[in-house]
């Protein structure tokens, strides 16, 4: 793992909705194989930042470089094929399908068999299906969701759906994983489980992870570095320890009064 190589480079990105400046000249880099957390108060522009990386939003200014490709010029599906996967704050799964089918669907970007081959389902197409199923089963085992393999996702409790969504992102075998508030709405135990899974993903596969999270305690525990946004501007960047004692950050979170 080339720890110092910049894997994702966000260069002076600006985004506005009408008169509201969602992101103002934000720059930061994520090194290969690190867990980088983006934190900030509500409305700071965290999710907008992820949406720019996916190119769901198109920044007015700036570049986002991932392994030499400028993501702002690519469509979201191309970005996914480059190896960028994400989970969403409000969970975006096929609620009528089973866990297994949701994960298998995510494998489509790796599927090679054509329409006719798949129709015959013999030889290469069959073998390919087995390979993908194995990859998916390994993720199911990894995330300990064997018991909901065949369950319809819409009927699962919230914490488990979050886990399934992480599974779907992993099934794409990304090199960069974007996680938008993976622990919101969870109880303490579920949060700890999720944190463990994120650390295991990171450790096992050395993936670069960009993480947005509200729970400061957990962020500080698992992130290698932290970027702090406030009103669309980057106000700090550094190790969790440095961020914890940063005056500007404390003021942004707790207000002027408290900080004094």
């Amino acid at each position: 793992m080339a720890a110092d190589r910049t894997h994702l480079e966000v260069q002076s990105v600006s985004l506005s909705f009408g008169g509201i400046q969602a992101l103002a000249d934000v720059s930061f880099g994520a090194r290969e194989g690190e867990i980088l957390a983006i934190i900030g108060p509500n409305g700071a522009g965290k999710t907008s930042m992820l949406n720019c990386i996916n190119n769901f939003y198109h920044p007015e200014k700036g570049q986002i470089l991932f392994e030499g490709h400028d993501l702002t010029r690519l469509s979201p599906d191309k970005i996914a094929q480059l190896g960028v996967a994400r989970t969403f704050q409000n969970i975006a799964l096929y609620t009528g399908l089973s866990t297994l089918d949701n994960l298998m669907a995510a494998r489509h970007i790796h599927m090679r068999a054509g329409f006719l081959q798949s129709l015959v389902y013999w030889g290469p197409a069959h073998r390919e299906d087995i390979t993908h199923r194995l990859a998916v089963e390994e993720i199911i085992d990894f995330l300990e969701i064997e018991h909901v393999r065949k369950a319809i996702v819409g009927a699962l409790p919230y914490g488990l759906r979050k886990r399934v969504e992480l599974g779907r992102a992993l099934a794409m075998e990304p090199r960069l994983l974007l996680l938008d508030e993976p622990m919101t709405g969870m109880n303490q135990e579920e949060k700890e489980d999720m944190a463990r899974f994120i650390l295991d993903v990171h450790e096992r596969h050395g993936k670069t992870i960009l993480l947005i999270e509200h729970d400061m305690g957990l962020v500080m525990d698992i992130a290698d570095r932290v970027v702090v946004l406030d009103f669309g501007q980057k106000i700090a960047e550094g190790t969790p320890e440095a961020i914890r004692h940063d005056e500007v950050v404390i003021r942004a979170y707790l207000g002027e009064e408290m900080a004094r």
Partner: protein
Amino acid sequence: MNDADTLPKSLAAGQRKYGNRKVAMRQKTLGIWRSYAWQDSYEQVRYLGLGLISLGLERGDKGCIIGDNDPQYFWAQLAIQAGGGVAVGIFTDSAPDEIQYVVHHSDAVFVFAKDQEQCDKLLEIRDQVPAVRCVIYWDDKGLWSYEEPWLRSFEEVQHLGRALDTEQPDLFERSVEQGCGEDLAVFCYTSGTTGLPKGAMISHGNLISGCDLTMQVDPRQDTDEYMSFLPPAWITENVLGLAVHLRTGMVVNFPEAPETVQPNIREVAPQSLLFSARLWENMVALVQVKLIESTWLNRLLYRIFMPVGYKVAGLRFEERKAAGLPLRLLHTLGEYAVFQPLRDKLGLVNVKSAYSSGAALNPDVIRFFRAIGVNIKQLYGSTEAQVHTLHVGDDVRFETVGIPPPGMEIRIADDGEILVKGPTVVRGYYKDPEATESAFIIDQEGQRWYRTGDAGYIDPAGHLIYLDRVKEMLTLSSGEKYSPQYIEGRLKFSPYIRNVMTVGGEDTPFVTALINVDFDNVGRWAERRGLAYTTFVDLSQKPEVYELIREDVQRVNRALPPAARVHKFVLLHKEFDADEGELTRTRKLKRGLLGERYGAMIAAMYGGDDRVAVQAAVKYRDGREGVIQTTVRVATLDDEADGIMEGRTS
């Protein structure tokens, strides 16, 4: 069955008999059932055992194992035993300090810990268990970056074993041969309700005779399937799982994850099953819920055929009669339409022996399963003596826990305690001569008995009736003992009884009971019989209702020795109420307060009155509340030769 006297010898015998030709174990991994032949199983144990020997395992050493039901758990246990060691199981949900106690107390030199979760606990207590040479894990998830030489993987140890094997090719076989039935096989730490856990020392001979005795009354074959889901640190899994597997060749299946046990049971459809009473009850509840969600056709079939199932089962088991031809034909139809599909959904399609242990099972639950063709039997046992009693064949009685298997003996001590004797009784507790001395006694004929601490009674048919723990029994003024829990628990099985409190102690000559009728069920019963009633007070004091409840009380009395029977009862004019402080929030009786509040009634029962005047608050249908004067009757049961005299209720 073979004549091997230890578990590893049984494994070797199985390997010689079946080799690669037969499946020994199966586990669902990555969504597929993966099987291990006897040869595979044997080699896993062989190299693991040799690995332990090369790490310094000596005969008599102890090795702890903490992990879920996996083939590796059994292999680890057999590997320790093959090297002459003793396997000590630890429950997976144990906290680090509990693990520390067992590891330290058992003098373990190795610990098998399944995964990161368990390894972390051991790392936490590492300084307190200096005797442990290494911790061996079999699931490396999350452990990839631990740079900790104290932790070793299963494969690493087996690799050491292979190296030792090339140096000394017959070392493993010689080591297995050295074992004998007298050798200790496992320690089972019993979670003592008082004080620290005690380690029962169980020999290979204990386990093998426990298996063989049970097999005489409930044989298993090598084509049978078994699902391993009871905690392997528990004696039951050691005997009915591992030992039976090794002795009969029965296939052991392991669930994919602890959460998938139920669907996995359905896939495997085992021949024998042991659930706690609670699990059987949950199954019935699950059927009711699923039925509501099901199609109208399924509900219709269920409504048509379940009564047929109940009828046929009632004739067969309770009246011991054969059903007539029309009923048998209907039953066959029901078998295809309802019973077989239901058994399939519950994973009971092949089940021949379904056991319940722990708390008493509600007869309604037993009747439900009998109706769909599963005869649930009670099994009563302990860590110290394995299976004490069980129901055999069709001889299943609701109120008993069955008869001892051949070779076991049950005796009731003078104070009512159940004593057990047989080849399964363990040698004692590890490093605890005091506890050993008080739990095992030698009688005048030099026979050694285990004192169960349970109180019981043997009925005329030779069945054991389990009452309660001895220390929970109460003594009457006559010196006779009775069990409040038993009477109350059994009475509450009646759909017409909501709650009961028994009264009786050292200053009273007999047992009495304060009973709450179940307003809904008794009300419905009254409506069916065209019996008019107004309020709870009115309904509870109807002579007909007294007769109804009297039958329930008599049924429970019949299973009890005369002195411990309920002699008088009253049906209360109101329900016990948590809001009035009569019950705790978990709905347990507050006996002291109830005794005071209903003191007049209790006094009447012992004083020989047959009526008591009470003031009762009533709530009318229109919401008005008032206080009425009423009288509550006292019902008396006379048990002349088990006959019941006409009560004096009216």
